[in-house]
């Protein structure tokens, strides 16, 4: 039984996620959203491809980029937007904000503690075993969260309790300004094997591929065959969070130039390390900055445009118009400052 990929629906959800987050970004720049706003722009292919397989009663444990998943799961956009601007009428009455979104009706909880989605998903799955057999829990996290002890412990806990947890690792290759591969021993595939859990890798830019890969995994989960890891690559073009100063530093020529003074002084400072060390330090700063700049300038790998190209233009226009309408009415609810 091979169902066809529901491309238009996946496209619709991805556009909703994308456009909603673009609106949030604007609200953030307007100063109406406070704090560190981490967006999932670029991750929609992974999120939409997974969510489409969920049924009522499935649970979501989300990380510091919870918005796309909530949008896709059906949380009211106005409630979400109102929460972001701190309104009493928001999803969490203005108490949670963008990193601490909770939707009890959809069993969706988030946390800004890297790795916390792992134990949370294990707990949801345990409650499923007793209260909602056949339901699953999905943990969304970044790839660098895989080095956090509580996440590693959860892989093991899920394995030995045979919990129906799908660990979805959204791999953009970076943790803020650190290249994840440089801080991660082994590979994710071997990590999963190390805990005895199933593993599948997929390109997150291809929502259809995600959808196809995750279907059988979730079927197995529902049948009680124990936890699994979906490792999905992705590209997040805007970096860590809105207007990250470190990212601005490496991407803006002006800002990077402003750095060159202090860095050159540090390099020249004979009171510091041996010249070999100092050059090594400079090399590391430059290679990190250059690596990030190249990474962020990449324009391939966008799941939305990629799918769009394969779809009928009128259908696309219809979807986009519907989403625009939804976003506008959401923004109307939020009003102006």
């Amino acid at each position: 039984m091979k169902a066809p990929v529901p491309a238009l629906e996946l496209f619709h959800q991805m556009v909703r996620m994308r456009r909603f987050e673009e609106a949030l970004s604007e609200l953030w720049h307007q100063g109406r959203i406070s704090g560190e706003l981490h967006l999932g722009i670029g991750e929609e292919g992974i999120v939409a491809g997974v969510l489409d397989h969920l049924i009522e009663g499935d649970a979501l444990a989300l990380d510091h980029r919870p918005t796309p998943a909530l949008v896709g799961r059906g949380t009211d956009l106005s409630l979400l937007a109102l929460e972001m601007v701190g309104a009493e009428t928001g999803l969490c009455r203005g108490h949670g904000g963008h990193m601490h979104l909770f939707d009890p009706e959809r069993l969706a909880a988030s946390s800004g503690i890297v790795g916390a989605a792992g134990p949370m998903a294990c707990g949801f799955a345990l409650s499923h075993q007793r209260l909602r057999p056949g339901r699953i829990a999905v943990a969304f996290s970044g790839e660098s969260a895989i080095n956090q002890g509580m996440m590693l412990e959860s892989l093991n806990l899920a394995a030995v309790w045979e919990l129906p947890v799908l660990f979805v690792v959204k791999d953009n290759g970076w943790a803020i300004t650190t290249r994840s591969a440089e801080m991660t021993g082994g590979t994710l595939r071997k990590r999963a094997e190390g805990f005895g859990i199933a593993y599948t890798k997929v390109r997150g830019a291809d929502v259809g591929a995600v959808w196809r890969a995750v279907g059988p995994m979730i079927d197995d989960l529902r049948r009680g065959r124990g936890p699994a890891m979906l490792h999905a690559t992705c590209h997040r073009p805007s970096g860590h969070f809105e207007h990250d100063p470190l990212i601005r530093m490496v991407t803006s020529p002006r800002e990077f130039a402003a750095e060159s003074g202090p860095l050159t002084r540090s390099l020249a400072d004979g009171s510091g390390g041996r010249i070999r060390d100092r050059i090594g330090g400079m090399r590391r700063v430059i290679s990190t900055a250059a690596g990030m700049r190249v990474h962020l300038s990449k324009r391939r790998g966008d799941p939305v445009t990629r799918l769009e190209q394969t779809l009928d233009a009128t259908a696309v226009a219809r979807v986009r118009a519907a989403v625009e309408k939804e976003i506008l009415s959401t923004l109307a609810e939020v009003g102006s400052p």
Partner: protein
Amino acid sequence: MTEFGAAIDLALGHAMVDDPKIVVFGEDTPLLRRELLVRFGPERVRPTPISESAFLGAAVGAALGGLRPVVEVQLVDFLMVGLSALVNEAAKIEAFSGGRWNVPIVVRATCGGGYGDAGQHEQALWGMLAGVPGLAVVVPSTPADAAGLMRASIENDGPVVFLEHKLLSRQWRDAMAGGRRESVTFDVPPDGADGPVLDPPPPVPLGSAIERRLGGDVTLISLGVGVHRCLSASEELGERGVECTVIDVRSVAPLDRAAIETAARRTGRVVAVDEDYTRGGLSGEIAAVVAEAGISARFARVTTEDTIPYARHLEDATLPNVDRIVSAVESLLD
């Protein structure tokens, strides 16, 4: 007469009969809680790996999913390994969700010293935990309270840390202290270790202190084993004509401010007897409660000032004891 640890399991058993959503898990739980395991089956009583961060966090998720987990961490000291689940998740979700989601978990752990295991395994740490808004912390001093507070903790809709003192619980005394050796003795308070317990045990509401003794000269405020030390000191002081009120706060958070204020006002002298560290939070909080109420009372503390040393004689001098309580009272008398 019921033994302290048995009283807790009695309450737990009743609760598990009443509410099938209660599950129990932790390291070694199948043998530690073998009677519950045999009574309720392996789905409701299960072992964990040595992964405190994961299973405490899983308790939070399970509670959000509709269960009421009672999760056992053998020593409160080990909570430090997975504290984020309590401080950053369990304690915060009700507030962050705008009051729409609760985290009804009970974290059961042993605490306290007095048997020579040294300060990495004998801490109290209740002040640190109680300082976090959203966390309740209870520390019973008798079997009846142990049962009643366990009942109330399970019924509470937010997270509760339930601490049982190793000197009071036979099971833990045997395990951690090798308490069945005839060659060792511990200063185990008899009324704390064994006492009458109703079956089923009525809940003891969180945040309700109890007056264990009434006297007009000085108020001793304590909890857990400290209560018994206070009662012994009060006996000794009573013989010398100094009459003590002894307040057992029973729960560190919520804290029964009214009970503290009333007694402090009546006696004008307050001694906080707290096995937790001096700056651990509770003894200072007692001073603050009194001062905030505008009560001008003389104040002293008997607390654990330093890392608890291993040697029994050093440990005895470090933990609050009857002599130190008597001296503290005397220092307020002249």
